[in-house]
């Protein structure tokens, strides 16, 4: 297939054809191959990253592939670029190419066992990459954890705004309910602090009970969601948007005025329970469960309700229950994410979960793509990176991000990767067909 198309392209557009030819062998690299290549890169960074950064005139390793440097210290752009090429692009390109056959065989081999084996191998590799990458600096560790939490929030909001087609604005409110609940849970039970006094249980038990705190936070959020859902799901239209926005402000001023929870100053000194593995596990869990839900007929009913509610009802779908369940489910995950968020930052106040958070989350959902798990992941990761890169602009960041959002809305109204299904099994597949094509092309 490549031999037919290439000459035509070459005459039309030299650069594009050359890029396509360069990319051709990489089409047959399975996900497993990319993960191994990435692992090699981050391992290399551990070994030679620091000396290389010094040699290139940088005081430390570029934290996010050099994107933070762009606006901060423009003079270092060539160094950062060179660093990224030498540590990431070049080694990855070589390793991925060399191990194509091996990783395809391995992927095929793994799929002979139950799917869970493949999933575990991929996850362990992904975690190893993440661990080595975040080991370099605390900043990376923070960004990685916040990005994963953003994935949970974005995905859960996508269930309502994308899959169900309503417009909910209350996600920061749900996050703050989860964050406060989980914070109070850990502080009261396991930590001696001046607000809630002596710990009730031994401090060393804390990390083991942390999941219960998170789930509790999720449940409190879901109860909050019930208060929004009961009045607003009687009719369709803008009611949910208005009521949920009101709910967000009610929750915010509630916490501002409750002195028990520190009022406007908020709660601080949460224990550091939301470590990288904890956040990683919760993120994987949320993606898995939400993806399961939206792929089942019960979850697809959300699409049916969105596209034509009357038809859904005539086809035995209990539309009210469907909407309720999805909304509470989304709120639950927002609450869990809030609990994790509180224990990553170890400081929360009511203002953290205000209109700016809402803008951020909505931007992630609409940027990444409606009705798509992949889109939510792309949106959360992409927007976090962009927003870190724009950090030197401070408040002007909030002019650029909305403008980008508007452009996305104009040119891709449903987002970058909208309306796709996230099929885990096909993700792990070896790329056999492409492999054959590449061999043919090479010969």
């Amino acid at each position: 297939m490549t031999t037919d198309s290439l000459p035509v392209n070459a005459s039309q557009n030299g650069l594009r054809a050359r890029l396509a030819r360069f990319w051709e062998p990489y089409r047959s690299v399975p996900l497993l191959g990319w993960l191994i290549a990435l692992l090699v890169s981050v391992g290399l960074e551990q070994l030679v990253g620091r000396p290389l950064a010094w040699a290139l005139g940088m005081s430390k390793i570029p934290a996010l592939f050099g994107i933070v440097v762009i606006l901060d210290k423009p003079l270092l752009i060539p160094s950062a670029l060179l660093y990224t090429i030498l540590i990431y692009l070049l080694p990855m390109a070589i390793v991925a190419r060399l191990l194509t056959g091996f990783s395809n065989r391995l992927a095929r081999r793994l799929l002979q066992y139950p799917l869970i084996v493949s999933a575990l191998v991929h996850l362990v590799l992904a975690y190893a990459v993440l661990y080595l990458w975040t080991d370099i600096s605390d900043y990376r560790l923070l960004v990685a954890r916040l990005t994963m939490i953003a994935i949970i929030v974005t995905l859960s909001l996508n269930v309502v705004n994308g899959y169900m087609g309503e417009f909910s604005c209350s996600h920061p409110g749900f996050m703050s309910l989860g964050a406060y609940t989980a914070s109070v849970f850990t502080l009261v039970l396991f930590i001696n602090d001046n607000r809630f006094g002596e710990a009730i249980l031994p401090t060393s038990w804390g990390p083991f009970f942390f999941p219960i705190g998170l789930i509790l936070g999720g449940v409190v959020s879901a109860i909050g969601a019930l208060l929004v859902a009961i009045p607003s799901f009687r009719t369709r239209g803008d009611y949910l948007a208005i009521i949920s926005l009101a709910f967000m402000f009610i929750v915010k001023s509630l916490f501002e005025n409750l002195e028990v929870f520190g009022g406007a100053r908020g709660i601080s000194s949460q224990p550091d329970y939301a470590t990288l593995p904890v956040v990683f596990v919760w993120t994987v869990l949320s993606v898995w469960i939400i993806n399961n839900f939206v792929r089942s007929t019960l979850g697809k009913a959300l699409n049916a309700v969105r596209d034509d509610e009357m038809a859904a009802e005539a086809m035995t779908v209990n539309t009210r229950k469907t909407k309720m369940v999805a909304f509470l489910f989304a709120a639950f995950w927002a609450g869990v994410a809030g609990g994790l968020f509180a224990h990553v930052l170890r400081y929360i106040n009511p203002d953290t979960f205000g209109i700016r958070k809402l803008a951020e989350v909505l931007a992630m959902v609409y940027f990444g793509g409606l009705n798509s798990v992949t889109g939510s992941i792309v949106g959360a990761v992409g927007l976090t990176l962009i927003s870190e890169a724009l950090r030197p602009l401070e408040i002007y960041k909030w002019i650029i991000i909305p403008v980008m959002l508007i452009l996305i809305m104009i040119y891709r109204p449903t987002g970058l990767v909208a309306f796709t299904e996230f099929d885990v099994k096909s993700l792990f597949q070896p790329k056999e067909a492409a492999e054959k094509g590449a061999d043919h092309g090479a010969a």
Partner: protein
Amino acid sequence: MALLEVHNMTHWFGGLRAVHNFNLTLEAGQIRGLIGPNGAGKTTIFNLITGIYHPTEGRVVLDGEDITALSPNQIADRGMSRTFQNLRLWRYLTVLEHVKMARYSKLTYGLVGAFFDTPKREAEEKASTEMAMELLELVGVAHWADQLVTSLPYGAQRRVELARALATEPKVLLLDEPTAGMNPEELIQMMEIIRKVHSQFGMAIFLIEHRMKFVMELCEIIQTLNFGEVIAEGTPDEIRNNPVVIEAYLGKEVET
């Protein structure tokens, strides 16, 4: 007792009486037709029977159970399914997903299954896929199973809607202008499909149709509606020659 009985049903939209004193008895396995000029209230009657509107007066009884006050999804679950006059399909679902969706109330795996992908869910989803494929085969659109409905030709979309209605395992099937917008060839195919479906499942069918050829060939008994009231009821032959029906459709001759 008949399978579906409607007693003295009247419905007001504000000050407009859309349906007046409508009665219906539909026996198991019977095919009945409902005709009438535009705006006569035919679709309103369907909407009243299937619970989308609740009648101002009167009762609807399905298989001995009073369903007048039930919601559309409960009525559908009890064995009354329908198609819509202007296709009501789901834009972002595939053909197969459409038919599977109609199995919603028959699924028992619940939220635990939906969240955790349990073996029970796998089994039920698989069974429902198999059943859906059989129905798609029956109406002849199985080869489009993985397409989005919006990419299908119009006639095929109508058949998807029919397959979807069948997936609820109806005892009574309501067809709202099943051949609207079809060309003569598609019309014949649709008639054959309806015959096939009827002979295979034996459900009672109540249909609204404008094409007289279609109604006359399929239905045992036809009701004619005008301004929300039944003006004639009888076999196709009786209806064809009934002066009241002709008048409702064509108007009265000017007396000279």
